């Protein structure tokens, strides 16, 4: 039985096309991917991201515990900072990629929908093994016995506002003491909306300005309705996972299961910015340090193709009869009006400007390594 977010029936009543995503029955599109991408790039889109996991490290050793479990330097984060990092195996490969939120009395971790259970159990195992004095609370789970100790005290869900009009919209709905423009990129704050305690961060997965809002999941419908009605004159509309995936690909952002997985390290995937080599020890660190020092055998690159056929995940990248690697994500990019892809190749083929071929369903086409991100918003 597929899992659902509190807004599931809302999506169905909006006639959204639903798909299974990591065990969740989620909207892939409402009006259409192209128009939903345009909404996000030009106005503001509202995304139900209640399927994503939210875990909290709480207790005297919360920071130390998480610092040992993820690749970014949690100990160095000042209150209110958000940082990208990865949960790694001993081999330095990725169990998941996460956002870490340093709150005043705890650390929040947002994890991928498909990895919620794996991540939680991994964290709890490490915490128990190392004897860290901290709780790992599943803040999204109604069955969580320690929910009373979570930030909200009740199970929470999550919505995202993404697009240039997000700030204006969010300012309209938060309490009058909150100045949204003061919240900088990759920062979080506590505030209230509809009188409800919320955690708001200036983060997202689209390459656009925007916010993610954590709040009581029982209030999901009321929050959704409020944001849609308050955002009407700002051009708001709901955006599904299809556009979300295309937007994040345009922005060169990795997706777990595509660019990163249990066979890939963050160094190989070009995620050096999520890896701290100073600071304390964490699982997988020595492998990453070695790769930074001595190089990697595969590298993630951005690609453009000489065809209007679209390279998709799994398409082989070829140099003559040698298989270099494969496409990890590929899409038509509506914002750029061209086809883009990401894929792994050996370092010998990873320089920008290198040309080779991609096999799209049995036919070869030329492709060129290009810089990432493909799309960068103007500030």
């Amino acid at each position: 039985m597929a899992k659902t977010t509190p807004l599931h029936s809302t999506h169905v009543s909006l006639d959204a096309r639903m798909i299974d995503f990591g065990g969740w029955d989620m909207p892939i599109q409402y009006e259409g991917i192209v128009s939903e991408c345009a909404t996000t790039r030009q106005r503001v889109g509202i995304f139900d991201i209640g399927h994503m996991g939210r875990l909290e490290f709480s207790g005297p050793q919360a920071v130390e515990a998480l610092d040992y479990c993820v690749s970014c330097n949690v100990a160095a984060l000042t209150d209110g900072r958000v940082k990208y990092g990865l949960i790694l195996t001993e081999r330095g490969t990725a169990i998941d990629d996460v956002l870490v939120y340093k709150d005043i009395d705890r650390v929040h971790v947002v994890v991928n929908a498909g990895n919620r259970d794996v991540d939680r159990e991994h964290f709890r195992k490490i915490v128990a093994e190392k004897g860290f004095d901290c709780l790992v609370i599943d803040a999204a789970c109604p069955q969580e016995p320690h929910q009373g100790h979570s930030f909200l005290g009740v199970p929470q869900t999550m919505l995202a506002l993404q697009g240039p009009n997000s700030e204006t919209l969010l300012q309209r709905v938060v309490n009058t003491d909150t100045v949204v423009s003061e919240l900088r990129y990759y920062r979080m704050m506590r505030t209230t909306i509809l009188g409800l305690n919320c955690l708001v961060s200036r983060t997202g997965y689209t390459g656009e300005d925007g916010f993610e809002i954590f709040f009581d999941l029982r209030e999901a419908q009321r929050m959704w309705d409020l944001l849609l009605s308050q955002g009407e004159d700002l051009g708001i509309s709901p955006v599904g996972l299809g556009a979300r995936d295309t937007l994040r690909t345009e922005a060169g952002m990795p997706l777990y299961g595509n660019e990163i997985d249990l066979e890939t390290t963050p160094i190989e995937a070009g995620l050096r910015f999520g890896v701290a080599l100073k600071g304390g020890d964490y699982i997988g660190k020595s492998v990453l340090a070695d790769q930074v020092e001595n190089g990697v055998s595969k590298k993630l690159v951005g690609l453009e193709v000489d065809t209007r056929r679209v390279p998709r995940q799994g398409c082989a990248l070829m140099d003559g009869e040698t298989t270099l690697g494969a496409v990890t994500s590929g899409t038509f990019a509506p914002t750029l009006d061209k086809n883009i892809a990401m894929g792994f190749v050996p370092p010998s083929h990873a320089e920008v400007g290198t040309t080779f071929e991609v096999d799209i369903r049995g036919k070869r086409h030329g492709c060129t390594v290009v810089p990432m991100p493909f799309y960068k918003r103007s500030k």
Partner: protein
Amino acid sequence: MRPEGLRFSKSHEWVLIEKDIATTGISDFAVKALSDLVFVDLPAETDLLEQGQPYAEVESVKAVSDIYAPLSGEVVEVNEEVGDDLDKVSKDPFGAGWFVKFRISHPNELESLMDEAAYKKHCKANG
């Protein structure tokens, strides 16, 4: 525009017969299901079509889909305009959005296609 006398395949291709020449494309149902079309890769003139086999592909933002030959025959004309203007397919799938015309080689295959009423039922069952 939806001409009279269309025949349909189960995989949502339509065909219109004039003497021994068939015009084919994809139905409005297919256009809606595929959504966000970005490219159509069509065969060349003189290419041979075999009923039920893929002869073209349609790229949408999220997926690529094979388009199947509703009947067998030899391509005599290709609608080059749809390659550059997918709106023609989206807005007028039975008219300006046709894909190819081909000379029918096995007229008896026509019996396996659905008429408008049967196709409507088929779509309802698959909608």
